[in-house]
């Protein structure tokens, strides 16, 4: 057994054969970008626009690296580096607005991000003080109701489309779901307003109206994401279940849905995050109010997007406290969405199924 010696590994470059090729120093990439970063800081301090300095330094560093690689490593590796640098730069370019947005909201919102903001409403508040308790409560109630309405409809629709639907009806439903995805949110709001106006007369404002408007926006997203998750459940699992003499409905409930569950929850959270910041439909259906209203079936309800919009559009005198509250409301909204996403991630990690 032990007679065979392990062959000595012959790595390219160690023998001086035709397998060798030039290579940039090991830390060339971090070194070049390190210099570029310093240069960017220098340019910014010298008075250049911050973003422009970063873009300029990164572009010069990229061109320099590709050129250097071309000279030392040859054409193929230079192109490889060019593509790597382009892809990575595109990623950072896409990230830039997000970082900038979070930074702006965090800086401007932190001024009024205090305990009072979360515990008091705007009732009888003029100028400084006050808070968005009523708006946070309203947002949670309206979005919660919208979720309660859209998830059953959306999930059952997706189950129909994937497991039962055939022919024209399936095509038609798919088409209309696609169409619903494109509905402008203000149209959904006006629709909800019109429906309730038929029964309660014009000028009606209720939290549930906002929930209906939001669920119209949510349903297509829930249908689409659930559909995708159900589609990637391997057919072999359904077959395995049928072959055990399990009925179709039980197969769906006990085999297909558990397998897809984690992905479905992620999709639902994405849908919630999508509608929780909707302003226009809530503006026309639930309006705004300064005091706490926890009853979605009775009267106006405040909510974070409209609160933020209202405070910004028509601030009092002096305007500063109103603007600060608007930014704090935006920050609270972002944090709620972030928290929802984190919960979805945890659910996925805990219960996620690895499909082959």
């Amino acid at each position: 057994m032990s007679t065979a010696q392990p062959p000595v590994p012959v790595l390219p470059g160690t023998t001086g054969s035709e397998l060798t090729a030039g290579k940039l120093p090991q830390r060339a990439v971090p070194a070049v970008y390190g210099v570029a970063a310093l240069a960017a800081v220098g340019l910014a301090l010298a008075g250049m626009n911050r973003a422009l300095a970063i873009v300029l330094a990164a572009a010069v560093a990229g061109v320099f690296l590709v050129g250097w690689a071309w000279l030392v490593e040859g054409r193929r590796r230079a192109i490889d580096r060019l593509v790597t640098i382009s892809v990575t730069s595109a990623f950072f370019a896409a990230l830039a607005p997000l970082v900038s947005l979070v930074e702006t909201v965090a800086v401007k919102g932190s001024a009024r991000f205090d305990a009072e903001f979360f515990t008091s409403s705007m009732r009888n508040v003029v100028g400084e003080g006050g808070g968005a308790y009523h708006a946070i409560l309203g947002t949670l109630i309206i979005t919660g109701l919208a979720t309660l309405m859209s998830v059953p409809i959306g999930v059952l629709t997706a189950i129909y489309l994937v497991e039962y639907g055939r022919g024209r009806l399936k095509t038609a439903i798919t088409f209309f779901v696609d169409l619903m995805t494109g509905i402008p949110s203000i149209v959904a709001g006006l629709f909800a307003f019109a429906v309730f106006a038929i029964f309660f007369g014009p000028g009606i404002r209720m939290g549930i109206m906002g929930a209906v408007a939001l669920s119209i926006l949510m349903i297509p997203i829930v249908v689409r994401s659930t559909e995708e998750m159900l589609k990637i459940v391997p057919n072999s699992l359904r077959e395995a279940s049928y072959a055990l003499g399990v009925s179709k409905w039980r197969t769906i409930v006990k085999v297909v849905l558990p397998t897809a569950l984690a992905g479905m929850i992620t999709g639902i959270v994405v849908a919630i995050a999508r509608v929780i910041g909707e302003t226009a439909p809530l503006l026309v259906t639930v309006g705004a109010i300064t005091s706490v209203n926890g009853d979605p079936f009775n009267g106006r309800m405040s909510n974070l997007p409209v609160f933020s919009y209202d405070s910004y559009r028509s601030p009092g005198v002096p305007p500063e406290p109103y603007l600060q509250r608007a930014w704090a409301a935006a920050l609270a909204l972002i944090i709620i969405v972030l928290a929802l996403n984190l919960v979805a991630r945890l659910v996925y990690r805990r219960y996620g199924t690895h499909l082959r």
Partner: protein
Amino acid sequence: MPETELGQQIATGTAVATPDPSSRGGRTTHLRVKGLNVHYGDFHAVADINMDIAPNAVTALIGSSGCGKSTFLRSLNRMHELIPGARTEGLVELDGQDIYAPDVDPVLVRRKIGMVFQSPNPFPTMSIYDNVAAGIKLNGSRISRSELDGVVEWALKGASLWDEVKDRLKGPGAGLSGGQQQRLCIARAIAVQPEVILMDEPASALDPIATQAIEDLLLELKKDYTIVIVTHNMQQAARASDYTAFFNVGPDGPPGRLIEFDTTQKIFGAPSNEQTAAYVTGRFG
């Protein structure tokens, strides 16, 4: 063995006396196929199959790809009906009862005629234990925990997997090796106590050692079950089966037809059909 509702009759609402399994040795036919034709929409997949499948024996279906042997296998427990547009003509009888009769529920057919698939497909959300118990639990049977434990152990022993997994029954089924997963699927199939087990190339995704284990298992399983197996491996058919059916498509393409059906010894030793001889000696296919 614990009594479960799984032993109920195929035909819904009709009480037909169940044949005593031990008496099956006296009979020569367990599944009888007469004039079977399967269409998928306009596509005629298999034509005019007549075959009597013997009880407590392994019947191998061989033939080149696309000759309809998998379709035929699936038509034996109506699994092919999952494909939209599937139509079946002819007769398939399980102990004399037509499984395509109008009052027969295909779900109940599949409780008597189980199936094992080409690539192992344990349920990824379930543990090893739950995978084996799936057929019982998913059917809503209410048997006690200790009875279920007994069935799971019995099924895993039947699939020669018990010794390898008895210490990690709560572990995920997907964590087993490919060969173990396939035996887990066999355990899952026999846990619902079927009479017939259909196997669609059960060893084609496995290495030779795992294949050997499955073939050894076939010899054990046929004492209690009737087994029909599709295989592309002619040595496997020769080694493990008692009867062999050779399928082929005509020169004009589908439908696939049953060319020759006989004892394995005859098919591989002295086939009476020229095509069969050419196929089993490796001259085509």
